[in-house]
């Protein structure tokens, strides 16, 4: 306890504060709540470290200045005469210095945000909107609580066989991120694909105004970011802001997701692992080497062999195929493009090391639907000892307990042999779910993900399949 208290007075403290701000994407509410939860400030940078850029360095300098100012005042008070009152003030200032710095930094942050950053961003976004309005390419917008990046990559891979396609890299899905990407366009692209990030009501509408999409895809709605949205109704309404914008223009909706399907209109195109209105899926199979199925409509038949893992990938593949067909790609181009699809970074990405252990890196998948899909995939694997490693899911709001218990139940039903849990506030719920479903495998606990990753090579055997599910960023500790 004393160590925790002293950690506020250590040299690392200012850096920890700025790291917390940066990891929370300078969201003051999140920063304050993380700070309230944190007991020891010496080991805040666990999963990542502070990224040094002009903004973070400026804020770090200001924090140091604040601390120096408070300590100097304390010294000034005691230096210029001794009295009991002055002594009280001196000790009070010494005690209060880290608190003054923690909260004081918010003022310059707000100044930077509203006086410098916002006006600059406004002009950047305005310029990007003008550029995009003049761009002749077809703009496809993807909204949803999950699966947006996978959908973007699938679309990009399939459509690239017949069109010049561009899409923002990484998870550029905010107005500023998309504007940065727009600056890189050559102007001759035929298709532009955008992910729409949603954190608060109105976010999707704002992005639609910027992009002005010609068609869209809604990948599904679930509890991702529920902590921010508070209710699933608000999440649904925000994601369907895309539908409001598109009007009669084509909108593909994931028919496997109940919330999205229930909210879809009759003119929307539903897609699922069964196919679409136009296409029918037959002979679906999946395994560690990929997924295959046959797609037929009235007069066409296409055999698909994707390297993507899991039957849940068939729905997005079918949607991409239908869009490709709509945009005029030939059957050969579609088949070639679809067969080129492969797992993306950290999304059910298989890796095999020299020891013969197959690791499925699904660390960017942190939503309940994605988890269910992956557990179903693991359940379909036979002849392997299966390991499921997770710190649980973040931002599940009021449904945190029920969602995690359900994950435990699903793992027990799938007869997963080994479940590795990282100690935090949610994994005890997974354990509870496992126990309630008479889980027959082994549960192992680790203090943090790094300890688990270090131990796994010594616990596994050749042929084992290790699934790494989701990451637990520092700001949720």
């Amino acid at each position, binding site marked *: 306890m004393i160590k925790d208290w002293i950690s506020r007075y250590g040299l690392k403290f200012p850096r920890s504060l700025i790291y917390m701000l940066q990891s929370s994407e300078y969201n003051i509410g999140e920063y304050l709540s993380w700070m309230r939860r944190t007991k020891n400030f010496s080991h805040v940078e666990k999963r990542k470290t502070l990224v040094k850029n002009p903004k973070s360095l400026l804020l770090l300098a200001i924090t140091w200045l604040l601390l120096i100012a408070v300590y100097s005042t304390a010294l000034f008070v005691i230096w210029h005469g001794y009295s009991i009152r002055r002594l009280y003030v001196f000790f009070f200032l010494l005690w209060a210095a880290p608190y003054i710095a923690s909260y004081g930094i918010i003022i310059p942050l707000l100044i930077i945000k509203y006086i410098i950053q916002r006006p600059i961003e406004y002009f950047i976004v305005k310029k990007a909107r003008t550029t995009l309005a003049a761009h002749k390419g077809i703009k496809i917008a993807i909204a949803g609580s999950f699966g947006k990046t996978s959908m973007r990559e699938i679309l990009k891979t399939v459509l690239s066989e017949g069109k010049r396609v561009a899409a923002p890299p990484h998870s550029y899905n905010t107005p500023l991120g998309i504007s940065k990407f727009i600056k890189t366009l050559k102007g001759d692209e035929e298709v532009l694909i955008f992910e729409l990030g949603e954190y608060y009501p109105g976010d999707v509408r704002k992005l639609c105004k910027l992009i002005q999409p010609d068609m869209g895809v809604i990948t599904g709605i679930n509890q991702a970011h529920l902590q921010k949205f508070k209710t699933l109704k608000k999440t649904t309404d925000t994601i369907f802001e895309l539908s409001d914008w598109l009007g009669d223009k084509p909108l593909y909706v994931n028919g496997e997701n109940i919330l999205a399907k229930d909210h879809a209109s009759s003119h929307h195109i539903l897609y699922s692992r069964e196919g679409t209105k136009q296409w029918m899926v037959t002979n679906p199979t999946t395994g560690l080497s990929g997924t295959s199925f046959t797609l037929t409509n009235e007069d066409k038949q296409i055999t698909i062999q994707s390297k993507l893992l899991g039957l849940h990938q068939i729905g997005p593949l079918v949607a991409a195929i239908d869009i490709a067909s709509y945009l005029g790609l030939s059957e050969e181009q579609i088949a070639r493009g679809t067969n080129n699809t492969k797992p993306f970074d950290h999304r059910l990405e298989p890796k095999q090391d*020299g*020891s013969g252990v197959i690791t499925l890196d699904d660390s960017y998948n942190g939503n309940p639907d994605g988890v269910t899909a992956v557990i179903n995939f693991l359940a379909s694997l036979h002849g392997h000892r299966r390991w499921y490693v997770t710190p649980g899911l973040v931002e599940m709001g009021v449904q945190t307990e029920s969602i995690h218990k359900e994950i435990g139940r699903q793992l027990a039903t799938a007869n997963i042999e080994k479940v590795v849990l990282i100690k935090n506030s949610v994994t005890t719920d997974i354990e509870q779910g496992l126990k309630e479903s008479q889980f027959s495998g082994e549960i192992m*606990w*680790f203090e943090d993900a790094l300890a688990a990753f*270090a*131990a*796994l*090579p*010594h*616990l*596994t*055997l*050749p042929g084992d399949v290790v699934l790494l599910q989701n990451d637990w960023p520092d700001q949720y500790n």
Partner: protein
Amino acid sequence: MKNIAVIFGGKSAEHDVSIITAHTPIISSLLATGQYEVWPIYITKDGAWYCDQFMNDLEYFKKDDWHNQLTKLKTIHLSFDNGLTVIWPGLLSKQIKIDLVFPSMHGTFGEDGSLMGLLRMANVPFIGCDLFASAVAMDKVLTKQVLASEGLPVVPYVWFTKHDWELNKSTLSEKISHLKYPLFIKPVHLGSSIGITKVKNNSELENALEVAFHYDDKVLIEEGIENLIEVTLPIMGNETLQCAAIERPLNNTEFFDFNDKYLSGGTKGNGVNRQYSELPAQINDTLTNQILDLGQKTYRILGCSGIARIDFLIDDQTKNVYVNEVNTLPGSLYQHNWKTIGISNVELVTRLINLAQERFDSQKTTTYTFSSDILKQSGGKKI
């Protein structure tokens, strides 16, 4: 949590290999269990003992200036008062009572039984073979003599010391001339193939002996086998034995030397012997059974316990099998081999710990002292 000390390094030609074995798999697997407080005890080549938990990370020993950093630490003291206690001297003196020791020292002053003797004196349970098996197995000549006396097959050999060679060169040369070339010249007490030379004729002998005597004062000269197949068998257990898979090292060079074993090994290696070994060895069932039988007999004759690895030579034409060497601390515990029969690193170290405890408990029932009046009677006419 139990305190477990992993002792590595030491005054040995295999000093660096010992550091690797200590970390991969021993320390990392012990940490992975989450059940032990691991205390790495590193012995320098000069014989100084250090212990600090940051040495649990192998990366420390890869730093350029780790030797300098090490000298800033205080050497530890050991107390044998009712068990083994590690003491960090100084103003802020600290001490830790060790519950179990995991020796990870290859070669001299460690694997040769010296460390085991120390640990027996300290009355602390330790992993792996005991003093007697370690001492015999470390001496390649003694091993052959013991095994041959029990009727186990070994290849023809000659041995002598540096002093013998200097005094009786002609007699010994005469003895050597009865062996069939090619011959292998080996320092008797060294492992990891250090100092071994293959000679094809008499003119190469002198140089090879010089190399061997550089590392040891006792050398072994043994016949090479035509159409040789080398295989090795890791075994674990005290009374009940479990064999791992029979493994055949693959080498394209003259023989499997230190570089092949540790620097170019594994499928990822870029050395000449790119593929480290054939696992399990593709040999027929008769040979397999013969090796399993000879392996277990050797293990028992030498009194091994915990873990050991027995090396064999097979003449591919005659199908004769010879016991070659016994290694009481296989490099990295031959973890890759145990994995192929379904034993993970964590399970391996956990089993070895249980075996060590089992042996320690059973030794407690042995009476080592005897009451007599001999002291009172000393000084008399005849004791």
